[in-house]
């Protein structure tokens, strides 16, 4: 695809690659601040990805009653429902077992581990009731005895998860809507009247068979489990699309009526820009607060809501870019060769206009992480037992003497947000050379 194909900045002849993407990359690398920010973010992403192996209350590898096993890996399988815990490992405290030998993670606690001996805000430098230095709480504990360092590491995972998945959702919506608005404009998509009418008529029907008549099935599935729910949701989507496909099949029959056969322009750009204007004027944060107040706390909900309201920047960027690109020669060439418009858009137009989107994504991730920690801080929307950065920070309000609860999580939020903002700035400079000079 477009971004790993051009990994090398030089082509076979040893000349500098003159493609737009390679140019952006070179410009970005010139900005040392942004480049090091990127490296640091990759480092943090590494922590987020391997949080379970860095801070966990289960041994990485252990020998218990003569059997060697890896409880950390096993816990993944158990969480997914593929395996069950072995005899003797069910409902126990891993730290209290007598192992033949055990290899513990660098931090032998999780964000949910309660250390009853070290509850009530044990300072990082103060006295702690631990067996050895290996078991010390290096950043102290909170009121319930959660290890702050472990919470920080798992908090990285939650912050990155929220930032990346919510912006992933936003990118999908934004690129899709922005590109059809920009590429087709107001006069490029011609559809027969019959097709428009039949689609409008069948849309409620598709909604009905996809979702309304299946609402209890979906609800029951949500009660059974996440996987079953997703399966039913996909089935619903399939039915929804099926009805629309049938509708478009019927539209072929309407071709024989002259009035309905006449093709008219669909003002896609107008519709989508109006829609963007509506979404932009929604006060995002307050709306998110209202939504998380109504539903049960869940990080997936937070991600989905952030993604559903933060796509407008991406859509605007890509629309503006495609409005420019669609008049370039190579698009005209593709038209002249008779390729379908949709294929031209997907294969040629979008890959060449994606780079500004990355600016929006970088700033968007920073904003999403800030929203997540803000919600955690308020105690809304994020499950309480996760001990995210924001939740640790809010715990410090009832105990000012626990400075480690105020300093470290706040600093983590600040650093992460700053790094993503710096990357965003670097990308802006690299992509828009006019601002440089």
């Amino acid at each position, binding site marked *: 695809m477009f971004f790993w194909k051009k990994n090398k900045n030089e082509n076979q002849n040893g000349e500098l690659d003159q493609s737009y993407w390679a140019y952006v990359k070179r410009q970005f690398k010139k900005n040392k601040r942004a480049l090091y920010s990127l490296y640091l973010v990759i480092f943090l992403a590494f922590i987020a990805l391997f949080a379970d192996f860095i801070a966990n209350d289960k041994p990485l590898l252990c020998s218990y009653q003569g059997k060697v096993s890896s409880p950390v890996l096993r816990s993944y399988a158990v969480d997914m429902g593929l395996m069950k815990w072995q005899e003797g490992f069910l409902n126990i405290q891993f730290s209290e077992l007598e192992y033949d030998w055990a290899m513990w993670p660098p931090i032998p606690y999780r964000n949910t581990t309660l250390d009853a001996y070290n509850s009530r805000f044990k300072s990082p430098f103060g006295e702690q009731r631990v067996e050895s230095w290996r078991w010390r709480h290096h950043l102290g504990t909170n009121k319930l005895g959660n290890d702050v360092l472990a919470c920080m590491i798992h908090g990285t995972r939650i912050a990155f998860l929220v930032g990346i998945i919510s912006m992933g959702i936003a990118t999908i919506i934004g690129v899709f809507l922005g590109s059809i608005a920009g590429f087709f404009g107001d006069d490029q998509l011609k559809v027969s009247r019959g097709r428009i009418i039949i689609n409008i008529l069948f849309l409620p*029907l598709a909604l009905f068979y996809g979702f309304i008549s299946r609402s209890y099935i979906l609800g029951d599935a949500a009660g059974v489990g996440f996987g079953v729910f997703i399966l039913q949701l996909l089935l619903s989507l399939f039915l929804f699309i099926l009805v629309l496909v049938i509708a478009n099949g019927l539209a072929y029959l309407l071709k024989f009526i002259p009035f309905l056969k006449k093709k008219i322009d669909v003002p896609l750009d107008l519709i989508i820009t109006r829609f963007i204007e509506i979404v932009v004027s*929604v006060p995002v944060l307050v709306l998110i607060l209202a939504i998380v107040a109504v539903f049960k706390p869940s990080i997936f909900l937070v991600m989905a809501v952030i993604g559903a309201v933060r796509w407008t920047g991406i859509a605007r960027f890509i629309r503006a870019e495609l409005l420019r690109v669609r008049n370039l020669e190579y698009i005209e060439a593709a038209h002249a060769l008779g390729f379908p418009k949709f294929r031209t858009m997907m294969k040629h137009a979008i890959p060449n206009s994606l780079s500004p989107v990355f600016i929006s994504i970088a700033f968007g991730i920073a904003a999403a992480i800030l929203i997540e920690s803000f919600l955690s801080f308020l105690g809304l929307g994020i499950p309480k037992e996760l001990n995210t950065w924001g939740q640790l920070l809010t715990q410090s309000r009832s105990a000012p003497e626990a400075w480690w609860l105020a300093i470290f999580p706040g600093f983590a939020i600040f650093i992460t947000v700053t790094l993503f903002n710096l990357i965003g700035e670097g990308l802006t400079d690299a992509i828009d050379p006019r601002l440089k000079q």
Partner: protein
Amino acid sequence: MFQYIIKRILIFFPTLFAISLVIYALSILAPGDPVANMLTTAQGGEGNQSDKIAGEEAYMEMREKLNLHLPTFYFSFSTSAQSDTLYKIQKLSHQETLSRLAYDSGNWDNVSAYYHALRNFENKIYQFKPDSASMAPHTNIRNNVGQVYFFPEDAKIKNFISKIDKQFEKSDSLKQVIGADFENVKTAYASLRSETSTWKNYIPAIHWYGTNNRYHKWITRFICFDFGISYQDQLEISSKIGDRIFWTMLISILSIILTYIIAVPLGVFSAINKGNTSDNVTSTILFILYSLPNFWIATLLINYLCNPEYLQWFPSFGVGSDLVEGKSFFQALMIRGWHIILPLICWTYGSLAFLSRQMRGGMLGVLRQDYIRTARAKGLDENKVIWKHAFRNSLLPVITLFANVFPLMISGSIVIEMIFTLPGMGKMLVDAMIYQDFPVVFTVVMMVAVLTMIGYLIADILYAFVDPRITYSSKK
């Protein structure tokens, strides 16, 4: 120009409509039965018929007060197995159960018959005057009969029926008087399960209710500033907001003024000295301020500057309302200022950094323009070039950034007011969320949405006024 403004205003209304729909949908999805939340008295607690009737009447009254006796929206779009008069069923929990039963059986008439038989049986139970022999089974039935409304599952209802049957066996007098009513329930339930027509779940049905619906009442009252009553204390929401809005507005306005006074010269200064050490320092500081989460700074300030154990330089909560009584105006001003200064700082620095960065960027953009080079080339004084030619042109977009600053303020107010316990709208919103006081939540959200939209509207119109190019493009 005029055309542009009209177009802009016309867009305002569908936007408002869309937002009101989203918020209304949320208010319907909100968990719990609002009427039950409002009524603190337990219904039928003593088990007397009069208590039960009184409880139900209070329920009905509150239900009408909250407009819950009306259909949800202008129309309904559901399966034909569902009834279009479901909203007339008194309790929300009953509605849910019946809707599920209707889905399972596909036959609303039978569900309705079952429900009425059940209601009739319940009434008969309450009317029955037990003697000593039938006392125990009667009490037992009376305490259990209410549960059946809550579960639609076949097994649970059958279990319920067999339980009641057992109680009837214990007392003949009970069976003679109300046994027949229970038989009705049983036959109604049996026919509900046997005469199914689940195919109705695949037939769409649309019902039109007209303007006599909850949404219509809510939005028309909202436009007239009648926001309804709070679940928490049953006060008028408009009066609650009236009490709270002063401090939020005061600090917001002070903050906006402060932001513009500091940010604009700072941005210009930075842009003029681009590349100098002073610019680098200010830019870095501003960048850090821009990324510093204000809830962290606010927490640090209140933990370590308002705490007797560390430094108690500032008061830790409130706006000093009980301290100003009997003080002279100047002293009162000092006390108020002392309370407000930290919140104001936390409230302001983020938008300050944002605005001065924008100002710097705008100014740099203008300074690169050809007409600035021309002005310099013709030998104009540098001060004149900057303040007369560049500054005025770079100021225009910054003025309109007001629209972006405004929502920032509101979201700032939520957390700052919470941390510093200021009696403002933001704190009210968070409190209402924690107590699940949804009318207050949705009113505040709706108000913020409207104010934000008005902010954008004003900014757009302002922009059209100050930048003639906008007008040109709309005429074209």
